[in-house]
């Protein structure tokens, strides 16, 4: 891992305007899917984005890959502002930033052979001219598939194997950053570990940076260096994985960790303190004023409705300033408080 910043996202916003019928009137409304988030990813580093549905994880990944255009803020890749690049200008970025999708069934064209699926990105970018087939077979071997299966169709593969094809397609153009949007959540439990191991192996061998989007806290803990916890379009807590899991400061992060069922209960490790939230995530169309989490928060006071808490270090102003360089712990709550007993300490055999 080097210290070079690959991706820098500043105050990123994506608002979806739409019209809604209210009685006899058409009213303009806005879904604030992503509403001012900032983070950086360095070369070879892995950032985890976690949160519940509707928190803006997937929209964030679509903005960073520029499959969608931000309505505010900037995205810089290797120092170049790519926020509003035109389609033809994006080609080079597309080579460097690739995506792995959640559903290995709908993300592969069922009418194309694996060979065709993997040759297309090579043709688009003019890579390995005349030697495409050799490169495709090399890619298949790299992700643990039989290179002789080049002429098969996606339907002839299992879910785990299809996800490997999706991974091979992302790797075909030798990207520097991979956005993986829930890459294992559609797979069988016994297959998830195989695909996680493959991603970890590729990350080490090819020195890839990842943005890893997932709702499974265990998988994120296993795979990521930094974690950003999102709630209703905002980052509420950001920091090194160890900080987020072992000493979370934001009440939402604490509730999320506490809500995840824990297999260690069966190993006789005492159930951690339980925090139970009331109700569902509010609609991003008209999010609560001030702190967006206040409607479900047990600490909420008047100030929470009036002022939006900034994403800062709970302990010192110094570390807020060094945030851009990474390696710190930030949270956005008016009343932060460390809790350390939410995730059971796992004893390791062997």
């Amino acid at each position, binding site marked *: 891992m080097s210290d070079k910043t690959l991706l820098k996202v500043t105050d990123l916003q994506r608002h979806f305007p739409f019209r809604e019928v209210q009685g006899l009137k058409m009213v303009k409304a806005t879904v604030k899917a992503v509403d001012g988030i900032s983070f950086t990813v360095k070369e070879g580093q892995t950032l985890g984005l976690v949160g*519940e549905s509707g928190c803006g994880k997937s929209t964030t990944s679509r903005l960073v890959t520029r499959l969608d255009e931000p309505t505010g803020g900037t995205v810089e890749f290797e120092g170049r502002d790519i926020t509003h690049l035109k389609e033809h200008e994006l080609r080079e970025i597309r080579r460097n930033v690739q995506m792995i999708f959640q559903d290995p069934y709908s993300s592969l064209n069922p009418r194309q052979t694996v060979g065709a699926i993997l040759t297309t990105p090579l043709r688009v970018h003019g890579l390995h001219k005349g030697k495409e087939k050799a490169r495709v077979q090399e890619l298949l071997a790299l992700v643990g598939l039989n290179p002789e299966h080049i002429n098969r169709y996606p339907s002839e593969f299992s879910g785990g194997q299809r996800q490997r094809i999706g991974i091979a397609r992302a790797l075909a153009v030798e990207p520097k950053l991979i956005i993986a949007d829930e890459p294992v959540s559609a797979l069988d439990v016994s297959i998830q570990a195989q695909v996680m191991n493959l991603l970890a192996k590729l990350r080490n061998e090819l020195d890839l940076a990842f943005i890893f989007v997932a*709702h499974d806290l265990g998988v994120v803990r*296993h795979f990521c260096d930094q974690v950003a916890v999102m709630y209703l379009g905002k980052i509420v807590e950001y920091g090194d994985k160890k900080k987020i899991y072992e000493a979370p400061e934001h009440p939402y992060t604490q509730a999320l960790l506490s809500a995840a069922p824990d297999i*260690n209960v069966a190993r006789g490790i005492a159930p951690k303190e339980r925090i139970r939230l009331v109700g569902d995530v509010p609609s991003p169309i008209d999010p609560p004023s001030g702190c967006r989490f206040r409607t479900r928060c047990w600490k909420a006071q008047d100030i929470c409705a009036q002022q939006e808490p900034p994403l800062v270090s709970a302990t010192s102003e110094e570390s807020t300033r060094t945030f851009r360089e990474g390696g710190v712990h930030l949270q956005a709550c008016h009343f932060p408080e460390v809790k350390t007993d939410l995730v059971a300490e796992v004893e390791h055999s062997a």
Partner: protein
Amino acid sequence: MGGQIAEAYRAHNKVSKQVAMKRAVEMLDLVGIPNPQRRANSYPHEFSGGMRQRAMIALGLVNNPKLLIADEPTTALDVTVQAQILDLVNDLQKEFGSAVILITHDLAVVAETADDILVMYAGRGVEKGSAKEVLAQPSHPYTYGLLQSLPSHSEDLEELKAIKGTPPSLLNLPSGCSFHPRCEFKTQVEGDACWTVLPEWRPTPGLSNREIRCHLTDPVATLQHDEGVR
């Protein structure tokens, strides 16, 4: 939503629509739907995911069943809502005294909610016993492999201990024990039993209240030895 619950109630009880509707509102209240009187007149699409699952539970419980079968009841829900629903199922189970069959792929959910567990593979049970004991000390290679493959079982960033291969097609099951093509321990069984003989249920040697379908002579020792080596 109230209409659907009332309909289920009237199918089994000779009562008027008004009485059934009153019962439906009670049930919605019981499963924690705020303002049940008004919500009984809402349609499902006006409910959030967690509220819909609550309404489903109300529907399932309206006739005081002795057995409630919950098929992946929280898989489509977010974790904070999942926790609410599991708590609700636990509370209602105590209140109604119903038995619950919880069908899930999530071992952690089982660990926190179930009394007993039946682990299934390719259409057959492979291990059964007390949920906590099975998850703490599995005695079938498949259960063991599943637990080993969880990220929470590994040190950070080290390789996960995946089960090799993929689940077989149910149209064309492997001969003998269905798990044998993926089993790491089949070489420790004498002869070719794993390939040819479907194992019958038998008590796990050395453990009380536990049954498995596996040919290993001493599965507990074999798996413990393996965990020590890893």
